[in-house]
């Protein structure tokens, strides 16, 4: 037994050395993922955006800050995959408010999949991008501390998202390329967390308004499959959502049916670079027309 325990301890020490070398090497040579760059901007702002884009990958892949910005208006796209209102609320209150200069306008997406398992992102899963103090704080106080700890310390998934950066990447935005036809996506089960997510969305809007920023809600174009359109839950949820948001007195831009051509989509939910260009331009025109941001 003594020999076993001694060998085990020696192996663990040996492993830690190799692990540290691998960690060092991976940090030095790892391709930077777009999300890593976004979190760097969040915690150490250089753009200091007047218009901040929050929300899911639908926006990350579709709103081009280059089109939206002007000489006196900077824009940053903080959109991130699988962000639910709950995630964005936690992200906003925990980090954005603390570290980032207040923007003048926030663009936020609302979509049917925010009520589904597709919106699974948790702030703990990006723990390796946070300053040490935030990581410790999160790990101590979160019920999901194990994920926070593992994601920062265990090299998990370091090899993913390496090919995301392209020459078109700009201020948090990177478009999807053009494909022969839109890729097929798995559709999630519609879940019943509508009320929870709606509450978080409302709380988020209130917080942003408290911070004296204007809020614009965006419903992005997508190629919905017939079976999803027919889903009662989908229809009911979207209608209930819009009804609820009427009381919030925020500008809602509905681009759901703005683009229907397959050639503009990367997959059933996301626009490709052509679609992104079109929707970004349309958004800019509408913001010019309906808000004072560019004045």
């Amino acid at each position: 037994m003594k020999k076993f325990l001694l060998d085990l301890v020696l192996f663990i020490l040996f492993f830690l050395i190799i692990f540290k070398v691998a960690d060092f090497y991976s940090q030095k040579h790892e391709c930077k993922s777009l999300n890593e760059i976004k979190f760097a901007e969040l915690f150490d702002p250089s753009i200091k955006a007047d218009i901040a884009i929050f929300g899911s990958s639908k926006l990350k892949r579709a709103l081009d800050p280059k089109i939206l910005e002007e000489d006196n208006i900077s824009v940053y796209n903080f959109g991130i995959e699988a962000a639910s209102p709950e995630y964005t609320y936690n992200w906003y209150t925990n980090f954005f408010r603390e570290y980032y200069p207040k923007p003048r306008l926030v663009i936020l997406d609302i979509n049917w999949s925010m009520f589904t398992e597709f919106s699974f992102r948790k702030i703990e899963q990006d723990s390796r991008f946070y300053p040490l103090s935030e990581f410790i704080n999160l790990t101590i106080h979160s019920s999901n501390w194990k994920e926070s700890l593992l994601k920062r310390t265990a090299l998990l998934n370091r090899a993913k998202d390496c090919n995301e950066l392209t020459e078109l990447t700009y201020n948090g935005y990177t478009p999807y390329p053009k494909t022969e036809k839109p890729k097929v996506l798995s559709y999630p089960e519609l879940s019943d967390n509508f009320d929870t997510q709606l509450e978080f969305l409302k709380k988020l809007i209130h917080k942003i308004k408290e911070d004296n920023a204007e809020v614009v809600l965006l419903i992005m174009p997508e190629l919905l499959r017939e079976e999803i359109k027919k889903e009662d839950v989908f229809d009911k949820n979207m209608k209930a959502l819009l009804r609820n948001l009427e009381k919030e007195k925020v500008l809602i831009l509905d681009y759901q049916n703005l683009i229907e051509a397959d050639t503009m989509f990367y997959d059933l939910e996301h626009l490709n670079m052509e679609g992104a260009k079109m929707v970004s331009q349309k958004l800019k025109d509408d913001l010019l027309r309906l808000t004072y941001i560019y004045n």
Partner: protein
Amino acid sequence: MKFNSIDFALFLPLVFLLYWFATNRKLKVQNLLLVVASYVFYGWWDWRFLLLMAFSTIVDYSVGIGLSNSSSPSKRKALLWVSIFANLSLLGFFKYYNFFLESFTGAFSFFGASIQANTLEIVLPVGISFYTFQTLSYSIDVYKRKLEPTKDFIAFAGFVCFFPQLVAGPIERAKDLLPQFIKKRTFSYQHATDGLRQMLWGFFKKMVIADNCGEYVNHIFANYSEMNGSTLAAGAFLFSIQVYGDFSGYSDIAIGSARLFGFKLKQNFAFPYFSRNIDEMWNRWHISLTNWFRDYLYFPLGGSRGSTWVRVRNTFIIFIVSGLWHGANWTFISWGFLHAILLLLVFFIGQKQRYEGVVAQDSFFPSVKEFFLMGRTFLVWMLVTIFFRAESMSQALGYFKGLFSTTLFQKPQLEGGMEFKILLLLIIFCFSLEWIGRKTQHALESFALNWPRVIRWAFYAALVIISMIFVGQEQQFIYFQF
């Protein structure tokens, strides 16, 4: 508690230290620790279902005692039926109630009659199919006087709930596992280090191979109607790899963990994808279940003795029951049915030769013939496995329709978390090591053992780091649902 969790990473060393340092003087206390630890392990998922396991334990322990005190054949038979009834009732209610009800009402509506029946929202207790079979085997063996019943309740409870193999096997026989609870166990350096190696390999197969394949498979099966034939073929291939990595990985972790406590569990997977026909595959795949069905169902029914008809009937019975054991769905029954046909084809029109030893016994590479036979066997297995993965018969049939279409030769559309090229390299790496270790109990049993210690340890450390870097999105252990 899942094996691939921080909880288990803390739980296992804690139990290990208590086991060998705090309770090692008294066997009873050591066994009690294992029982408590196993109940904590199981209750981590849902403590309410501990009662079921305790019930099953008490029933079979009492039946065993009753059988030892009775010589009357009718009373002994009645006691055996108590055990069979109690265990199969649990299984029947939790696993099959809704399935039979729906099939029953479906059959009526097919003939034009309509009956109303309410299904229940029943949660399937994890591992119920495994531990009920394990306890049943005890009662049957005691009834047949193949085994002396134990009077040591703690040892018996340990046999039923032993945490490494509690929720997904291997299904151990009482005659193999129970004596290990009754005899004092001693620590063995070789066994413990071999256990750790087997666990490492199991984690690699589960977390890297199975979980990454799972991401592709989920996407392809969820959208099978919009996929071309080549993508569906890739989906079937990847699912075959996933299910093997998932379940054999689990078995490796279970067997390896047990070795740390001085227990030896039976090999559950003997490199089945290197089989030369379906008969050999079934001798190498989920061995503990196959043997269970052979000993407690196939042989009592007459096995392969008697007429051809008896053999055909018995083969269909065990495979259909085996399908049903895997899940309460017609897809599993069809899967079992097809395997029965394949096995009978091997018996009657294929090579009657039984393959006992490993492939390429005396050489490193297989012969061209062996290679062809292995490829053919895997291909057939892979196609039938579509029924195993499909959620319904219509999905399975639709999948086949899409697979065998003109689009089979188009470029596949593969979408998953990891780049497919990297996944393919990892699969090749995995099966290369399995090939090298095919004559042993697990791939790392003798691999690298002769290397200098530093290089060997660097290899193990690299395997851990690869598992961390390339870990796939976690998929539940497939066999938990059974």
